[in-house]
């Protein structure tokens, strides 16, 4: 049994490309060419150079001593927050912008929730001199204002998505509609392991650098390239996919995928897709999603814009469905508390999305000698306005 994608674009029964004909030529072209392009030696060389000199890779693997003492286990942090632009998202946008250039595309579109993918896309577009349009839900534009300013300074046009819940799902709908209307010159840089095949696999491959480095770093620091567990937050699932990738077939390594429970899993205001979701189609992929009996997509909720999504990538749907990954749900409050714990104990302010991964430590039982890697997907500068509101409650 493999947990990787099959030649038809499926992880088990999840994945595929359920798209209208208007998207077919672009998606079909990507399906046929993405691997060939991305593994060409000159492509790899240019990408690796940029990841090293521009992004700052490899990102450190840091042994969090005080946190380890608190949770009585060996905790290592994979520092994706130290990447240029402040999160793992740039691993994917560097890869996709090079791909877009190879495909001869001139115009780049993207969706964004927390604004990290939007910033990472605007950044590589500035770097390559390409036009950049980012769709972002109106609510997210408000709650992630610093990233909106960054995108604008970088020269991107930020277009508000005003339909539905005005968050990530709706921004993705608008980006898809843009692509339908601009099929020739435009490449759509999807920001997570979601969307029609080949996006989930392509984005996972670009993010796989996380676990590739992790292996070597663990070997060096602990003598063993395998950790006991890897914890990552899951919006669409790209940072988790990158952190899991090179361990997919290694079942000794436990995967913990942390979802946002918002005000509580059954509060009616949640984004805990693996618990609340069922099989269906969202954004061109057959996966787990939150929906009514009638197949209408339910509007999710999380304080964290990057996790406020009613689906998960098909790779994770399969991992969870098959029992290979364990899904843990974390509420807004638990995440906020974890953000303050990490900040006060290690001097690292995490993104609100990432804080969910740390909150999972409260819910897991690890042995003292266990090596646990948390993928520190991003930094919290963008979330200061939210954190500030909670100084009184958690900052004491």
């Amino acid at each position, binding site marked *: 049994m493999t947990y990787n994608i099959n030649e038809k674009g499926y992880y088990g029964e999840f994945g595929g490309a*359920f798209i209208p*004909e*208007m998207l*077919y030529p672009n998606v079909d072209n990507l399906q046929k060419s993405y691997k060939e392009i991305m593994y060409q030696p000159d492509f790899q060389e240019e990408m690796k150079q940029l990841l090293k000199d521009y992004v700052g890779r490899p990102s450190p693997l840091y042994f969090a001593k005080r946190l380890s003492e608190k949770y009585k286990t060996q905790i290592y942090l994979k520092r994706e927050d130290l990447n240029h632009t402040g999160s793992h998202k740039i691993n994917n946008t560097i890869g996709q912008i090079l791909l877009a250039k190879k495909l001869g595309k001139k115009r780049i579109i993207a969706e964004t929730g927390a604004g990290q993918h939007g910033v990472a896309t605007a950044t590589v577009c500035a770097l390559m001199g390409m036009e950049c349009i980012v769709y972002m839900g109106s609510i997210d534009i408000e709650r992630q204002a610093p990233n909106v300013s960054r995108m604008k300074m970088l020269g991107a046009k930020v277009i508000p998505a005003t339909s539905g819940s005005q968050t990530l799902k709706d921004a993705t*709908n608008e980006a898809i509609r843009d692509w*339908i*209307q601009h099929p020739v010159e435009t490449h759509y840089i999807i920001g997570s392991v979601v969307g029609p095949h080949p996006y989930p696999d392509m984005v996972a491959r670009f993010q796989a650098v996380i676990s590739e480095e992790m292996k070597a770093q663990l070997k060096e620091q602990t003598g063993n390239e395998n950790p006991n567990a890897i914890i990552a937050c899951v919006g669409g699932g790209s940072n988790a996919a990158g952190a899991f990738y090179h361990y997919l077939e290694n079942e000794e390594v436990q995967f913990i995928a942390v979802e946002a429970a918002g005000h509580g899993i059954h509060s009616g205001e949640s984004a805990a897709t693996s618990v609340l979701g069922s*099989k269906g189609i969202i954004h*061109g992929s057959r996966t787990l999603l939150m929906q009514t009996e009638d197949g209408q997509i339910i509007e999710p909720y999380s304080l964290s814009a990057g996790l406020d999504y009613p689906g998960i990538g098909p790779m994770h749907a399969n991992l969870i469905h098959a029992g290979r990954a364990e899904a843990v749900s974390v509420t807004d409050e638990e995440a906020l508390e974890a953000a303050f714990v990490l900040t006060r104990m290690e001097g690292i302010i995490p993104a609100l999305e990432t804080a969910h991964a740390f909150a999972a430590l409260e819910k897991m039982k690890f042995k003292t000698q266990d090596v646990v890697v948390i993928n520190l997907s991003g930094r919290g500068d963008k979330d200061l306005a939210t954190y500030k509101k909670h100084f009184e409650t958690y900052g004491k």
Partner: protein
Amino acid sequence: MENKLDQLFQKKQKNILNIYFTAGFPNLNDTGHIILELEKAGADLIEIGMPYSDPMADGPTIQESGQVALDNGMNLNLLFDQISTIKDKVNTPLICMGYLNQVMQFGEIKFIEKCKESGVDGLILPDLPLDVYESDYKNLLDENNIRICFLITPQTSDERIHEIDRLSSGFIYIVADAAITGNSKGISTKQIEYFERINKMNLKSKKLIGFGISDAQSFNTACQYANGAIIGSAFIRALKDDQQQVSENVSNFIGSILEKV
């Protein structure tokens, strides 16, 4: 029982007027009424939109009408009830258009049986992949005498158009332009070249042109290059005008399209 879509194409090969509307809009129980009025006013074919929360391929007009319909309480069970009630009075072929997730959640088999029971003649599911159609849907649809219609766009390759022609049992929906519904205006020479390219391919399927067809002029132009054309967003805007006047809105709108130039 004969399929009404087959019968239509036997009878009429030119100037087929296909009207799209969203079920449950403007009012929850307008569906049957709109169908009967459309038939009376002279529509040849009726496409019933099954409102969806996240209609990827649709523009603002259809999105909004779908949201109103959902807020009104529209759902598939109700839709099938509404159509069943009038099915004996309707001679116009009925096509249901929606997204695959709706069909999956309702249950593929149950959905198709319900279509048959309520007199639905065909389906348009823009996000149904051809291979999934062949493996999971084709036999079911054929057994129940329901036709499938696929879309093509200016970017669809000739090879794929032939494949789509082979698989279509209803008509080929020629998407007039790179567009979501309700967008473009008028028909350009570039579009005409595209229609002519399709015509030279000698496809077996009947062809209807849609997306951006909004008035008598664009309808008549489109009809020169296909068996007919499809109007959606423009009709929905007409229904919005005065929501109490559904009958008048329908007959005025269809009248404006069919008036002789």
